[in-house]
């Protein structure tokens, strides 16, 4: 098996795990679950691009992976920062909550 073909298979395998994660995004149930899905898709997409880079060998692909890694977080951060019930502060500035979080 040539190395290019091996990397293609690996990319295909990772793409399939992406589709598994996609089931979670469709099911939800909460908005946070879907956002987790997006975060996962960002990481996995970066990995697929890196593998495609190994197949094709053109250095532009690596820039794509870099941009993807940098901007995949923007959506998640936007979501957590501006949507209702989320715009509060990190613990460093928040008054410490009195009760422990539920052990779930």
């Amino acid at each position, binding site marked *: 098996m040539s*190395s290019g073909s*091996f*990397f293609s298979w*690996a990319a295909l*395998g*990772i793409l399939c*795990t*992406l589709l*598994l*994660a996609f*089931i*979670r995004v469709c099911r939800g149930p*909460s908005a*946070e*679950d879907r*956002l*987790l*899905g997006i*975060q*996962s898709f*960002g*990481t*996995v997409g*970066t*990995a697929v691009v*890196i*593998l495609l*880079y*190994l197949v094709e060998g053109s*250095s532009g692909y*690596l820039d794509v*992976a*870099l941009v993807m*890694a*940098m901007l*995949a*977080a923007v959506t*998640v*951060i936007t979501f*957590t*920062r501006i949507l209702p*019930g*989320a715009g*509060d502060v*990190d*613990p460093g500035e928040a008054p410490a*909550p009195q*009760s422990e*979080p*539920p052990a*779930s």
Partner: protein
Amino acid sequence: MIVFDLLSALFICMGVFFFFASAVGLLRFPDTLCRMHALAKADNLALGCVILGAVFQQTDPLIIGKLLLIWVVTLLSSATGGFLLAQRIRRKHLAQQEAG
């Protein structure tokens, strides 16, 4: 060079495995925080494996640097995004407790 090729293949296989594990975790775990746990750990480890596998194929230090930069950026954004999401979930739980 065959050693590097083998190492590279090994790491990429590990990466695929961990991606699979994280997808299964995301799919099967019972609640959001558990799923986040599966995702945040396994996904970044898997990306690290794939990048390490790719590094073994390279000789150009610039390319290796770029690959490592990608990993660092992903770790950082995933940590921040995960933290912000987890904080949001926890606050929601607390609000539910107070209400119930």
